[in-house]
């Protein structure tokens, strides 16, 4: 009989657990991430992780607290691709604040009210100290990004020249207005470069890739289209070789090189298959019969198998509609792959559905589940293969598939250390999302702890104002201390101080300066680093939500446990 068991958390073990898990991730805060090696005891595999979301993916968290933290971090990661370090750090230190309050005999309700007020104060700081992205223009880009701007200028020059040519031929009196527009595009791009630098968080090379990708997308858009970015990872090539290409780039086996060579510089027809390209494949929701017996009453069995017949069918269809490229979201039948080489058809497996959809929009192709259902209207046209590169040492070739009007851009990320590829890809995405978010918000926050310092100051100030709740002062004080911990960890990780004690002195000094009338505006390091407004405030909110969920929980109930199975200690059975 299955019953349920409960663990009562009278001593608020949950908050302690949260604090402990969070403490392991302190090295991930700030621009100088300290990666961790994680080794699987069973398989002896080791993985390099350098972000909270990857770390939590890897640890086995069987308790409810770990699960909740994991869910919260994944939700933040899914939407913003950044801010998880802050989230986990705050969940940890705020758990400590809540624990300390409990130890001082403050009720859960009072802790909740006061901490919620503390968060409101901090969110107000966020709102008020946000700088509009226009203000960033005044900062000069550092040398790392100068080349980008020059490149932009050159490119725009080309555009200008060609436009001038057209204009002189036709409406010459509109020359000036058009020129101004080109001028605008250029400034816009320069602005984007500056914003990108501001939110690069030390990942300059990744951010440069993002910028290059951004430039390949249509210029008229207000923001980059993050949905149209793709990454392609290439091991054993040095990191400097990373670059971006227009279109969808993928790696193919070296056997497919001859097909690629044959298809170069032609307008190609494309088919999009949503599913596997196999005779046994059936669409999702199709239930196969378990027991089918095929019977026959005639002795002469057809000599060709079903698979063979299907393959003939597919090849006939491909030929009939002159299809050159087939993008498949799933797998393709191995025998078929061999056969289509001869027909000079390129079959690419494992293509994400979002990419299939983009090709569908740009080429007019219709996604089909079965290649055999294809008709004239399903075939997309006007696809070309870009120049391909050979990585003979890996037995791989790289090819880009381009169509007119697509804003698909692929970032080709290389590393000679294969273990770093994952981190580099994550870095690329977090840079892309940070830039995207900064442009979407139109505002950024001063980074390097500047906003957090303001929070400390504001918390101190609101502590001195009216209070309905007698414990509010204590709670706000503890929250300010939590921020001190945050800023000092940030300083320690960035290497600007040698120890936390040193950091605390530096922060205290900053605070005193403020009391003497100077504004705490510049970050502790004096570097112009900026953060996203939405990402930061959401991370703060989510962290406090999590702490509140845990603070208010007193019981963990495990279902499906029977009495007598003595796996857990200290369990009570229902």
């Amino acid at each position, binding site marked *: 009989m299955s019953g349920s068991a409960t663990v009562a958390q009278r001593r608020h073990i949950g908050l302690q657990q949260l604090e402990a898990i969070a403490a392991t991730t302190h090295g991930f805060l700030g621009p100088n991430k300290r990666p961790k090696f994680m080794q699987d005891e069973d398989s002896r595999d080791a993985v390099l992780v350098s972000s909270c979301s990857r770390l939590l993916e890897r640890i086995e968290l069987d308790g409810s607290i770990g*699960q909740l933290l994991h869910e919260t971090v994944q939700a933040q990661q899914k939407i913003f691709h950044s801010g998880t370090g802050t989230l986990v750090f705050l969940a940890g230190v705020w758990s400590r604040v809540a624990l300390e309050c409990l130890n001082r005999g403050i009720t859960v309700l009072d802790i909740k009210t006061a901490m919620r007020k503390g968060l409101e104060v901090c969110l107000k700081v966020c709102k008020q100290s946000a700088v509009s992205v226009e203000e960033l223009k005044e900062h000069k880009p550092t040398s790392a990004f100068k080349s980008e701007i020059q490149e932009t200028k050159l490119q725009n020059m080309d555009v200008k020249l060609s436009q001038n040519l057209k204009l002189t031929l036709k409406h010459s009196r509109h020359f000036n207005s058009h020129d101004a527009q080109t001028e605008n595009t250029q400034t816009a791009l320069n602005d984007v470069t500056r914003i990108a630098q501001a939110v690069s968080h030390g990942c300059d090379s990744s951010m440069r890739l993002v910028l290059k990708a951004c430039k390949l997308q249509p210029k008229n858009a207000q923001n980059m289209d993050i949905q149209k970015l793709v990454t392609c990872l290439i091991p054993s090539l040095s990191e400097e070789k990373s670059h971006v290409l227009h279109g969808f780039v993928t790696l193919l086996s070296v056997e497919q090189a001859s097909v690629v060579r044959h298809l170069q510089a032609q307008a190609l027809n494309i088919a999009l298959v949503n599913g596997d390209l196999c005779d046994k494949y059936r669409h999702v*929701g199709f239930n196969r019969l378990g027991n089918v017996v095929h019977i026959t009453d005639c002795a002469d069995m057809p000599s060709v198998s079903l698979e063979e017949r299907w393959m003939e069918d597919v090849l006939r269809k491909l030929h009939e509609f002159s299809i050159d490229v087939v993008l498949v979201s799933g797998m393709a039948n191995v025998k078929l792959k061999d056969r289509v080489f001869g027909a000079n058809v390129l079959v690419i497996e494992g293509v994400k559905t979002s990419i299939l959809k983009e090709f569908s929009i740009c080429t007019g192709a219709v996604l089909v589940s079965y290649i055999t259902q294809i008709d004239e209207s399903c075939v997309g046209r006007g696809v070309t293969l870009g120049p391909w590169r050979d990585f003979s040492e890996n037995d791989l070739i790289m090819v880009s598939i381009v169509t007119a009007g697509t804003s698909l851009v692929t970032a080709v990320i290389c590393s000679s250390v294969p273990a770093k590829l994952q981190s580099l890809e994550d870095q690329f995405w977090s840079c892309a999302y940070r830039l995207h978010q900064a442009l979407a918000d139109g505002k950024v926050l001063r980074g390097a702890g500047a906003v957090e310092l303001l929070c400390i100051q504001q918390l101190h100030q609101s502590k001195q104002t009216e209070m309905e709740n007698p414990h509010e002062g204590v709670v706000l004080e503890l929250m300010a201390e939590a921020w001190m911990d945050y800023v000092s960890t940030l300083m320690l990780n960035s290497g600007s101080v040698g120890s936390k004690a040193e950091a605390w002195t530096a922060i205290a000094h900053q605070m005193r300066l403020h009391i003497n009338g100077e504004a705490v505006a510049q970050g502790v390091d004096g570097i112009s680093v900026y953060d996203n407004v939405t990402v930061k405030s959401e991370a703060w909110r989510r962290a406090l*939500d999590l702490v509140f969920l845990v603070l208010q929980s007193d019981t*963990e109930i495990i279902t499906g446990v029977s009495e007598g199975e003595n796996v857990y200690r200290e369990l009570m059975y229902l």
Partner: protein
Amino acid sequence: MSRICKKKPAVCTDEPLSNSNICQKIFLFRNILSTAYGPTGRLKQIHNNVGGHVLTTSTSTALLRRVDMSEPLLKMISTAVQHHTARYSDCGMFMGIFMLGLIENTQKYNLRTITAAKVYKHLVEECNAYLKGDSCGCKVPVDLTSCDSLIALACSMITSKPACMLNSRETQHISSLIAQAFLYSIPCNSSGVTCFGRTVTIGIEGQSVSDSSVFPGLLVDVPEMLHPADVERLGSGPFRVVLFNVSLSGDISEVGDVTLEIHRGVDPERDLLKQLLKLGEQVVKEKVRLFACQKVVHPILQHYLRKHGVVVIERLGLALIEPFVQITGAQAVASVCSLVPTEAYGMVKEICFRSCGSRELLQILPSKDTAVSTMVLCHRNETMLEELKMTCQRAEHVLRLTLREPYALLGGGCTETLLATHITHMNESSAATTAAALCVSQSEFLMAVEAFCSSLQSVALSLEHDGQDCLIDLTYAHRWVPDIYTKTCGCGLVEDRSNLEKTPLNTAYHTFSPVSLKNSPDNQPRILDSFSAKLNALNVAVEMANFVLDVKYIIKDIN
């Protein structure tokens, strides 16, 4: 050779309530319920033993649905509470705590079960008479001509579920959405017998609560292959609709788990697809513009339909079938073998894209007044969204119950303290006669009254979780907390004043008849409970407690 296994004899437990193991479990169960009760109730984290999804909740419905009980008695109690909440949507915790309190108190006072049952039955009748009567001091009329009491009722329900994690602004927003959804569900301009409409609730994770909203009609996920241009191409409505509730995936899984002999040369898959395409041809010919299916639609059929300008919605799910039928008037077609009968077609007025926060949804508007609306709820994380969705559904149901009995009870524990005081006072003077009428001794009668009333009070006591005292005032018999910044009683009806005498709830005090407060428009309770739900919970709790107390043997078949 066959082998015969000897059956094990059944295990019998006599006097289950005197078994310490069972008593311990009852105590644990009561503890779980009472620690989760009310706006400051502690949350329970429920997950399975293999590290599955964590559910954080303090609602009886979610809790009991997930937690399995090993004892038949506890199972019975849990089922009773679940049945109650399924019908009344509120007061499940009240019922559980009160019922378990009655069982424990009966044992504590060492009452004979037969006596206890008789007296409890008598007392609950008195409660019913008092609560239904005109002189009842813990009942307020719900004014259906204004939104205020509806919103107050919804708001009380939301604030009593802390796992929803709403701040006061968000609570206000959600409460008014619930009231709005409730008003949408009442059909206008109808005569004769009217039926409630329906509110469909969908959740969007990762967005701010303030993005939550109520829309008329039905909102569904945008089908994967549908572009805004396809909808524009439809032009203006109304459109003909067809709805299938069988799978159109083209498989023959309906035959069940049997062995099929298929003659070579026969391809049932191909034949079924042919049949599906024949259906497609028919609906295209009969100018259907919206093709909906509860389950999967074969991609080739979908392709055919789309090519002919038909919008396809597949995998609608069982939950949406009934509201879909309601807004379109279509009859769900359950067969692919015959043609679609003309009377099965329905109508919609319009199909359009609708954005909610950053999410795009497809809105289907009915062609006539059908009172169907969709409540889109947003929250930052899954756990909190789950609790919010459930709470909103229940709150809307509670509002519907007010149409049957347009009353609400004082919340915040005041009803319990008032009722307990009233019952104690009533029975003190007439103890001798009532005891004689019930054929029990007077002392036993008084003890049972005390057991009953202290069980009621223990519900009010369960509202407090931070170790503070609960007080009762000796004039109106409302519940108070010794707090410097709350100036009113639990429900908000009585203002504190210096000469109001109060005493801790769990101590002895002289009996008195509570003074009734006259309701005035400017003095309204802040916290309200559902009248119908609490009344039913009270009755079922007593009946179940009597039943459990009466169990003499538990016989378990352990084979």
